[in-house]
Structure formats: C-alpha cells, structure tokens
C-alpha cells in the first residue's frame, strides 16, 4: 500500500489550480465548456480505471453506467420536473443498480467474455432507448434539462471539485487494502479464494463503485448538455474512455484522469478534422497497444519524479 507522496500531491495541486484558473484567465465560455467536458470524461476514466485497471477485468460497456446516470437526470427533469439537484444522487443509485444487475451474471466470466458481455449490455440499452421511443425520446432523446448552476464558470468549478473528490476517494481506495485485494484478484482468483477472500464480493463492490462515479458523471454531463440521447450508451463512448485510460496509464487512477483531460482538449483542437477524429482515436489506441501498453502519462510522471521519492 503506497501512500501518496508529497511530490504526487504537489503535482496534483498544481494541475488542479491550473485547471481551475485557466478559464478565468482566458475568459471564454467556450473554453469553460470544453474544460467541463474534460473534467467529466476524467471522472469517467478514473472510475473505469478503479475497477478495470486494478482487477484487470476490462469493462467494454462503461457507457451503460454513464447512460444510466444521464438518462436518470433526463427523466427526473423532463418527466417528473424534479429539482435538478436530485439528479446527482438518483443517478448514482440507478447506475449502481445497473451494476448489480449486470455484475452478478457477468463477473464470473473470464476477462474477454466479461468485456464482451458488458459491451453487449450497453449496446442493448442503446437499442431499448430506441425501441421505447415514446418514453425515452427515441433518437433525439430527452431535452429541456435545466442547468444545475447558471454560471458556466461556477458549474465548471463544481464539476472540477467533484472530479478532485472522485480521484481522491478512488486513489485512497486503490492505495488501501481494497486496492491490494483487487490487484490480488487480478493475479489469481483461486489463490485469493485459498486466502479466504470473498472474491465475488470485491468484484461486485468495485464494479458498483465504478458505476456510481460513472453515473454521477453522466448526470453532470446531462445537466451540461441539457439533453440526453442514445449515443451516450454507445460502444464509442466506452472505447473513448478506454483509450483515455490507456493513454494515461492503466491502474494509476490519476493517469486516466489526466489522459481524459488531454485527449478531450486534443479532440477540440482537432475539430477541424471533423470526421477523421475517430480515425485519429483508433490510431492512437493501436499505437498505444503496440508501443506503450503501460500508457504515456503515469509512466512519464513517475520517471520525472523518481528523484524526489
């Protein structure tokens, strides 16, 4: 169990400060919006990494929890006209419920099959949204959500704060005995059983935690975009998150968060490339898989700060 060293905390503080102050310096609502999306993707990436990065059970259907959270916010706003702040806890509850329902049958499966089962589950949710279009708004989805905080800048700081809290909680868990057990599960489940560990419990619990934050991010996203639609459940969202994690360094939690922020910024800068963006993404993933399977950001950070540990 590693304690976060002083250099890590300093680095994090600098990054957070930079992220918080940039929109003030540049005074652009557009940039603030982009950074908000960056922060939300960072929450999604960190939450994926906590479960899949530590246990090695890569979840190809993270979009399931993201979409569940987002649509919960959507329903609360457009069907029940509830106070938008209720979306956040509600999204967490719904996403966790989803994780329980799909987790039990799928977590028994070996790595690739678990990945595929989750992928299928999210694809099916996407289809269900289209089938039951009278309730879900079909292809256009639900719109007319209200923002949680009117000022884009303040909402951004709110999302950033949630990101910091999320990364802090997930990192603390990862460095605790929880993290050790999850990594042991990745190592060898039979040996874990022989060590008296209830493997199923930890797998499901970590999936639930992962889903909770993903759903929370989904609700935050819904109240940013002010609409939700079926592509939120798509394999594209899942794979984008995975690419961000791989760029950041799988298993490090902070790496994926940074990877998400950088890749989202990059996407914005590449807006001119339009349809070719996806190709750039897939190319990035392929390059990472072949040349940098441990990622870019976390290994780089560790190398740079070796002397200070």
């Amino acid at each position, binding site marked *: 169990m590693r304690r976060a060293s002083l250099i890590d905390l300093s680095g994090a503080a600098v990054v957070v400060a930079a992220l918080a102050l940039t929109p003030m310096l540049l005074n652009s609502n557009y940039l603030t919006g982009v950074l908000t999306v960056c922060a939300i993707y960072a929450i999604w990436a960190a939450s994926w990494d906590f479960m899949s990065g530590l246990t090695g059970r890569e979840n190809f259907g993270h979009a399931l929890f993201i979409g569940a959270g987002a649509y919960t916010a959507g329903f609360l706003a457009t069907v029940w006209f509830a106070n938008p702040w209720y979306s956040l806890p509600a999204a967490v509850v719904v996403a966790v419920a989803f994780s329980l329902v799909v987790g039990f049958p799928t977590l028994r499966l070996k790595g690739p099959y678990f990945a595929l089962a989750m992928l299928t589950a999210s694809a*099916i949710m996407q289809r269900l949204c289209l089938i039951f279009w009278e309730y879900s708004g079909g292809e256009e989805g639900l719109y007319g959500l209200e923002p949680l905080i009117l000022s884009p800048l303040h909402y951004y700081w709110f999302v950033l704060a949630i990101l910091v809290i999320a990364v802090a909680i997930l990192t603390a868990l990862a460095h605790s005995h929880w993290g050790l057990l999850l990594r042991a599960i990745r190592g060898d489940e039979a040996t874990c059983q022989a060590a008296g560990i209830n493997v199923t419990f930890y797998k499901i619990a970590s999936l639930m935690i992962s889903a909770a934050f993903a759903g929370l991010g989904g609700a935050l996203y819904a109240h940013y975009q002010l609409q939700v639609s079926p592509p939120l459940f798509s394999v594209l969202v899942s794979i984008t998150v995975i690419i961000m994690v791989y760029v950041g360094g799988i298993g490090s939690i902070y790496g994926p968060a940074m990877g998400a922020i950088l890749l989202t910024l990059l996407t914005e800068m590449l807006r001119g490339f339009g349809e070719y963006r996806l*190709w750039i993404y897939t190319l990035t993933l392929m390059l990472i898989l072949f040349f940098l399977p441990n990622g870019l950001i976390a290994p780089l950070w560790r190398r740079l700060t070796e002397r200070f540990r």
Partner: protein
Amino acid sequence: MLEILIYGAVSSAIYAMLAVGFTLIFGVARILNLAHGAFYALGGYSAYVFTTLLHFPLFIAAPLAVLLVAGFGVLMERFLVRPLRTSQLAVLMITLSVSLAVEQGLFITFGSEYRNVPSFVADKISIGGVDIGGQRLLALFASVMVLCCLWLFIQRTRLGAAILAVSQDPEAAQYMGIPTNRIFSIVMAISAGTAALAGVLVSPFLTVQPGMGLLPMVKAFAIVIVGGLGSIPGSILASLLLGYSETIVAYLISSSWTELVSLVAVVTTLMIKPSGLLGRRAAF
C-alpha cells in the same frame, strides 16, 4: 406459419454463416474478432461498389467482394492481431478499433444514406402460398451450401485436419510440423470471407449503411455464446434457435424487439450454462 418457417430459415442460415466464421477463428486461434461485423459490412459495401459504381456483373462482383474482404482479414490478422496474441483483451481492443475505423471509414467515404445493391434474383417466388423474394431464398441456399462445404472441408481434407489439430493444441500441432501461422491466416480468410459473403447476400434486401455491422456482430456473439464458443455444430444449432425466435418475435410483437431476443439468450445462457449448448470450453 409457413411464412415463419421460411423467413426463419433465411435468418437462421445467414446468422449461422456469420456465427460459424466467428466461432471458427476463435476455436482455432483463440481470437475474439470484434471486427467480424466489419467484414460483413465491407462485404455489403464491396458488392455495392462493384455492381453499382463499377458496373461489374453480379457473378463477378460477389466473389470479388468476398476475396477482397478475405484478404483484408488476413492482413489484419497478420499485422494487427498476431503481435498482440498474448493478451486476449488487447486482441479485443485492436479488433474493436478496426471495426470502428472501418465503420467510420465507410461513413466518410459513402455517407450515411442507405445504399442499394441490386438483387441477384429479382423475382418473387411463391412457395405454398407464401411470397418470398428470390434473393432471400438464394441467401438461404447459398448459406447452407457454404456451411456444408465448410463442414466437409474440415472433416475430410488434410488441411481441415490440420485446422482441427491447431484448434485443439497449437503447440503440439507445431511440433508435428503444422505451420500454425499459416493455418491462422487460412482460417482468418475463411472467417472473413464467410462474413463478407453474408454481407453480399443480404445487401440486396437489407440496408447497406455504415453501421450495418454492429447488430450482426452482437447476434453472432450471442449465437456463439449460446451455442458454445469454438463449437461449429453449437453455432448452427444456436443460429436456428435465435433465427427462428427472432422471426417469431417479429411476427407476434414487433420487429424492433428482435434484438432483445439475442440479449435474453445471452444473459440466460451465461447465467444457466455458461459454456453454451455444445461448448467444451466454458467462458470462465
């Protein structure tokens, strides 16, 4: 009733061809090929390009499309998948990337409108009072033929025996002098080729659009899970089950519910008998 029988048979046959290709490359090379749906889509689009844009006659366009996609599959396996064979998850991700790249590439090149491919057989045929497009019947017969040929090929030829050997134990096969890498390429070619053929056969009566590979991919996965990973008879059996269930659901409820059949099938299988109906190797 007869309608269901016939239309169900068409669906089952097409799914069977897709699923068998998927389960074949898994059974032999342990590759879960998420780009399988992309091969299907490329088959359909190749047929479109060759017939509608290049004005080749159908009987040239179809085999050409199949060969083209088979070659694409072989290249993908050789350069993208083989270096990553040690990690099944990495293989999943790379094939998924290929699938997304292909879909996006098709979207960029052809746009999102549905494309039309002319039918091989334009007439409607009537069987026992049921009207069915000739193309669908052709698809049915062609699929069955291909599956039979494949079965005979594997059971009766030396190459087929080599393939079986590699699927049971690649290392042992290598010690016996079987060139496993070449076998992987051959099986990949068969797998991609059959997927492309399925795409070519259905493109006249189903839509050709960039995302056309996703649902067949999901269904092929469902069939393979239900039938048992690595088991060709299992895939065929499961294709019949799922194909007919979907047709029945489409008639009784509505066609937009058909994808749910796959979901229910997968979830049920995973919860009750994860190794599938005839699978030897469980998914866990």
